[in-house]
Structures are given as structure tokens and as C-alpha cells.
């Protein structure tokens, strides 16, 4: 386990800022204690200082997970968010998409959101903007990337993709063995 380097922090923040914008500040600078990002086994974990100190008692090869996994660095040093980060993305999300109850299941099975399943969308959403997907009852289901901007969304035919799927809570079951 080690702190992220400057470069790694930058790549991670750039990815995070696609979803929560400048709200990252709220993750870094928290009034309820010291929280930090740590890299372990190519994965980035977000944890409190207290947990971090406890975790130092466990050897690196035995440590499976600590705190919340935000995502991992790929071999090409890109950052990929994991569904486990949803707990921190959802409350700070800048752009949201609400999915109709009928399309919820399809999304949770890993499919893109189609126009027909789109319930609501935040105004001013740009194309390729990172969005958090909610059910109509405001339960966060996952996140993805807007395939079209808000204006276009109104015009396209119902079978076209509106939000590209990236991660959904169904992964907790589907990828149970690899998620940490």
C-alpha cells in the first residue's frame, strides 16, 4: 500500500471530475476526519486515516481490500472506476439520469440505457459527460457516459442509446469474485 504519485492522483481526479466535477474537494477535505487515497495492488482505496493505520498491520499480499475501492489503474496507467465508488459518486453527482422502472432491469444486467427507458435527464448534459444513473425512486443504480446531449435526447428515436453503460450495482453479483 502506498500513496498515489502526483501523476496517478491527476489521472484519478480527472476521471472523477467527469462525474462529480469540483466536488472532489469535498472528498479530499472532509470535516469529519482525515481521509486519503491509497494504492494497493493497482487499486485505489479511499479510507480514513484510522482505518489506514489499522490496515498497516496486515501484510501486503494478504490485504484484499481496505476502505472503499474507487477503481483501478490499468496496465496502460489509465484509471477505471469501479461500481464500489458509487457511494461517493452518487451524492455529489453533477449530471444525473433517471431510468424508467421498466428499463431498470435491463440496465442492471449491463445494457446501455435506451431512449425508451430514459425517465429524466439533467439539463445541459453534454455529450460524453459522465452521468450517474438513478431509478425513478432516486436510488443510484450505476454510472455511465451520456451518448447524446440533452437536446438531442429529446429528438432521437426510442431505440437509440442515450447513456453508455459503465458500471451498475448488478456487478456486485456478477463480478463478485473480482470486486473488492
Amino acid at each position, binding site marked *: 500500500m502506498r*500513496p498515489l*504519485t502526483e501523476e496517478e492522483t491527476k489521472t484519478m481526479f480527472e476521471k472523477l471530475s467527469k462525474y462529480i466535477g469540483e466536488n472532489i474537494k469535498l472528498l479530499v477535505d472532509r470535516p469529519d476526519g482525515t481521509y*486519503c487515497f491509497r494504492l494497493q495492488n493497482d487499486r485505489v482505496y479511499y479510507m480514513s*486515516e484510522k482505518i*489506514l*493505520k489499522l490496515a498497516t498491520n496486515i501484510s501486503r499480499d494478504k490485504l484484499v481490500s481496505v476502505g472503499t475501492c474507487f477503481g483501478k489503474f490499468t496496465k496502460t496507467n489509465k484509471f477505471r472506476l469501479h461500481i464500489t465508488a458509487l457511494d461517493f459518486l452518487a451524492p455529489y453527482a453533477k449530471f444525473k439520469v433517471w431510468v424508467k422502472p421498466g428499463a431498470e432491469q435491463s440496465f442492471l444486467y449491463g445494457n446501455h440505457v435506451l431512449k425508451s427507458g430514459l425517465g429524466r435527464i439533467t439539463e445541459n448534459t*453534454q455529450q460524453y459527460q459522465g452521468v450517474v444513473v438513478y431509478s425513478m425512486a432516486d436510488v443510484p443504480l450505476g454510472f455511465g457516459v451520456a451518448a447524446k446531449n440533452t437536446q438531442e435526447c429529446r429528438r432521437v428515436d426510442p431505440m437509440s442509446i442515450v447513456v453508455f453503460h459503465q458500471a451498475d450495482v448488478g456487478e456486485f453479483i456478477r463480478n463478485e469474485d473480482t470486486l473488492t
Partner: protein
Amino acid sequence: MAACSVEALLAKAEQEEAEKLKSITVLKELDLDFDIGNLLACDKNRVEPRVFREQKKDDFLRALARDNTQLLINEIWKLPTERVQEAIVAKLPDPATPLPREKPPPKPKPPTKWEEFAKLKGIQKKKKTNLVWDETAKEWRRRWGYKRANDGTKEWLIEVPETADPNEDQFAKRNKAKKERVAKNEYNRLKNIARAQKVKVPGVGLTPKAQQSKDELSRAVSVARTSTASVGRFQDSLPKEKAPKNQGKKRKFDPLIGDFSNEKNKQLELLKVMDSKKPKLDVTKAVNKQMREEDREEATAKFKKGAGKKGRKGNMQGKGKGNMQGKGKGKGGKGKGGKAGGGNKRRGKVGKR
């Protein structure tokens, strides 16, 4: 009396003399075991404890040692002797008793890469004869080395292959190839040594090869660049050149549990920089927003108008409806309607920027 005493004295003296010069023949119940090479004799005869106790112990041991030494010397005398400068010398045979060695036995040599491979593949060494018949010289010659049989390097003429460049010196080419093979073998030998001692092989980066890969070339370039008097400090870099990988720079990370506030400040600083790099105004977004506002304004205006119309006259309402009938037309109308007022607005905004 005197004669008697003289005789007795003589006898006594003789006896003493005999005592001093003990005979060279020693009688033993069991013969000794000799290892003349080591000058070793082993006496297997029993020592009677009674005799040992009755006699003086030192005397007994001394007598025993003398007898056995005598036997050993007798044995040596049986060997062929010769005289070397007044000294009689016997050549000892090879020692028969195995003695433990002083130093531990040497470790087996670590196998070379080829030996490992041969073992894996089950390749066994074949003994070849040292001498080979040479057809041209009509005699037996060594297989290798100086004056070897069927020497390929002694030809006075080499045919130029059809595919080869006719101006190429085939002799020089052959010499070069040979030199390269020798160098390669030497390099492999060093590699084997390095591998056996678990040391890094020196100069792996730049071995000559027929076909160098991109990676090897880039490494060669980076080595060549730093091979100046100033270790490449004043070397210019090409416009699109990438920094060489694996420069041997050690990664250094912050401590796991270090200064948390410092870490936090660094991250906040980074966020600030990232924020500042973002364009303050997204043009498409602004235009979209502007358009939407206009749409809304128009809609409200229309609504108001409509409300007014509803209240006042049915005549005007009809006109409005006529506009809205076709969707495409309606849109066009919208755009046109917006342009008169909104176009100016937009321009004004751009100017402000």
C-alpha cells in the same frame, strides 16, 4: 677369584652390550599390517594387562614402540634401495590407507545454458575421432585447429553467390562472420559465468544482432546519446522523440503514513490547477443555454400573446394557429422569430467575451 671376576665382568659387559644393541628380529604372535606409503604399521597383538601393570609403564611402551618401529624399518629395507650422495634411499609405494581430505570436496560446476538445454532434450555428447582423413592432402589430419583437415578457410577462390552483391569481398565477409561468431561465443561464455554467479550480465543492451528490434534500437540510441564527454547533457533531442524507458531511475513514493495535511494540501492544489485549466466558458454550452432561453422567452411571449388573443380577438388567434400547423414550419418560424431579437443578443455576448 680375580679371573672369575674378570670373566664375570666380561660376561656382564657383553650382556649389557647385547641389551643395548637389540636384535633386528622381532617376534610377534600376529604379523603387523603395514602401509609403507604412509609409513604406517598397525599392531593388532594383544597387550597383556598383567605385564603392562607389572613392568614400568613407560618402559613397556617404549619397548613396544621400538619393536614395532624395527619391524616397519625392516619392511622398508625390503624395498629396492639406491644410493644418492651417501644416503640410502628407498622409493615408497603409493599409500594404501585412504585418508580424509583436509578441505571439503569442490562443488560441481554450474551447468551452462547449453548443458541445461542438452539435458532437457536428452542430447548426449558424441565422441569424435581426433584425426580425419584429408582428401586433398592425402593424409590424416586433426579435425580442428592449425593444419586441420578439409580447411575451408584455405581456399584461394570463393564463388560469388548469385544473390550476393558482386562487389562485396567474400573473404572479408567470411572473416567478419568468423569474428562475430567468436565474439558471440565469448559473450555467451561470460553470460554463463555471470549466470552461475548470479550477477547481472554486463552490457546486455548493445549486443550486435542481425535484426535489431525497435526497442533495442531505441536503447542503443539512448546509450549513444549519453556516451559523450558531458554524459549527454548538451545533446539535442529530436522533435518527436520520446524519453527512453527504463532509465534506471528508482521510483520513490511518499511514506504510507506521512504528513496527512500536506498530502491533502497537495491534492487541493492539484484540483485548483485542474480547475484553472478548464475553460471558464463552454461555448457550445453557452450557446445552447442562450438558445433555450430564447425558446422560453418566445414561448412565454406566445403564451402571453395567446392569452391576450384569447381574451380579445379570435382573428389573430387563427393567424397564430396557422403558423403552428406544420411542425417543420413552426420550427422555422421559431428560428426566424428568434433571430430578429436574439441574434443581436448573441453577438453582444460574444463581444463581451
